[in-house]
């Protein structure tokens, strides 16, 4: 009974490591950040993002808290490591590329910069888990648009 290759691809060592030891956990005081809550009601997964923006719209710091499956938590953890200090436009591009990567459709423009996020590709074979992988990213997208309005 060998472990299936698909399963190993879904739960790569890096992903399991992020889920066991999530990076950038915690929050900032409410008046110093944008707080966005995201959840998947059908499975109960939750991600709370706390984001500080620079004046140019780039992210100066980001933390998260959440509960849920390994995929949702690891993906959010990897996201927080990736997006600090990157220009806003590039983060938006990254969100799109990440979506293309897990959905397995469309062109990934910044493939060179996806880095270990490329590992989330394995989710393509588990369509019911796509919403887990994208939970934190959808929150980030909303935060970026709400930050623009302020």
């Amino acid at each position, binding site marked *: 009974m060998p*472990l299936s290759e698909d*399963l190993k691809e879904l739960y790569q060592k890096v992903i399991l490591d992020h889920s066991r030891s999530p990076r950038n956990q915690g929050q900032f005081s409410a008046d110093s950040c944008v707080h966005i809550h995201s959840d998947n009601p059908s499975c109960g997964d939750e991600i709370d993002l706390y984001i500080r923006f620079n004046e140019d719209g780039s992210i100066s710091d980001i933390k998260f808290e959440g509960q849920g*499956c390994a995929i949702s938590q690891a993906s959010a953890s990897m996201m927080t490591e990736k997006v600090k200090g990157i220009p806003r436009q590039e983060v938006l591009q990254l969100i799109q590329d990440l979506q293309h990567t897990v959905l397995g459709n469309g062109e990934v423009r910044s493939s060179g910069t996806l880095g270990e996020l490329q590992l989330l590709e394995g989710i393509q074979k588990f369509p019911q888990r796509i919403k887990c992988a994208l939970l934190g990213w959808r929150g980030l997208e909303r935060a970026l648009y709400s930050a623009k309005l302020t």
Partner: protein
Amino acid sequence: MIDLSHLRADFPILHQQVNGQPLVYFDNAASSQKPRAVIDSLVHYYENDNANVHRGLHALSNRATDAFELARDKVARFIGAGSPDELIFTRGTTESINLVANIWASEFLKPGDIILYTGMEHHSNLVPWQLAAQKSGASVKHIPVLEDGTLDLENIDALLTEQVKLFTCVHVSNSLGTINPVKELCTKCRVLGINTLIDGAQAVGHMSVNVQDIGCDFYVFSGHKMCAPTGIGGLYGRAEVLAKMPPWHGGGEMINLVTLETSTYKAAPARFEAGTPDIAGVIGLGAAIDYLETIGIDRIHEHGAALTRYAMQRLTELPGIRILGPTTADRGSLTAFHLACAHPHDLVEFANTHGLALRGGHHCTQPLMKRFQIPGSSRASFYFYNTSTEIDRMMEILHRAVTFFS
């Protein structure tokens, strides 16, 4: 443990591989599999007797009507109803509860009244009552659940106040496996004039159920969890209570006389069965009962209990496991647990790649998950065609999962 493994031959679906591994189907509390006899009954009906019921004067309609009403007799007898007229066919447990929460409630619930339910109800036995309360100005209260997964009945007499008009309770919990003392509770309520509804979704077809012995006013269940097709289920209503309830859907079959101004209605069960029913589903439900009775409902219960005991005993091998629900011998044929190292969805995903069908999540009992402070649980639920060898196989997979995720 009694050996019922020969019955697996009756279930075509069980003999397949999933992800290259033999299927182990442990999601019976969500829906059971169907034996050849039930599948054949549907084919036979559509190939030989298909016609609308109760209205035709031709041979096919007569045959369809006979088969339909014969099934009603079987179901009524199977759950111990006093008469087939007390058995209304619905789409299942959810629709049955909604019928009562709309129609009974519209007649009997007034502002200030209380609906009492428990902290271990399925969402389908919470939400309809919350809606009914909003509409009528009544309110809802609940009986808390103790750490061991049983109801906290210490203050039950204080909870059953004069304002309580309806008490409802799950017979066998789909998340904990608890078998609730429904007879005692219904007896108390009857003395106080409180109407009662028991959710038997996990009980009928798994253990002997006698609604008259329980003494409830309503008892609801689904066919698809007891070998029958999806989309058919039942509502038992005590004749005296049904007689006081206004119609539900208006339409054909439920009327005596219709004029352009007004109409008069039939008595139960026709009063609550407007339109063409799921005739094939009802016939399939009858065939399922025939099938279950050839095995014997007590043997089915005994086997389910034995499998559950064995599974719960073996699950304790896993490090960091928390098993939910009572540890007593008398419980429903399912066990739910939480592993410290893996979220239920990851565990169920892992199991699926090994051909093992478990259920992971909140099981439509979010208040219960909150009560036990867990995001969800993994559940293995059994039926008579499952074997201890399959539980051994589950344990092999779960041990691997623990190694993988730790």
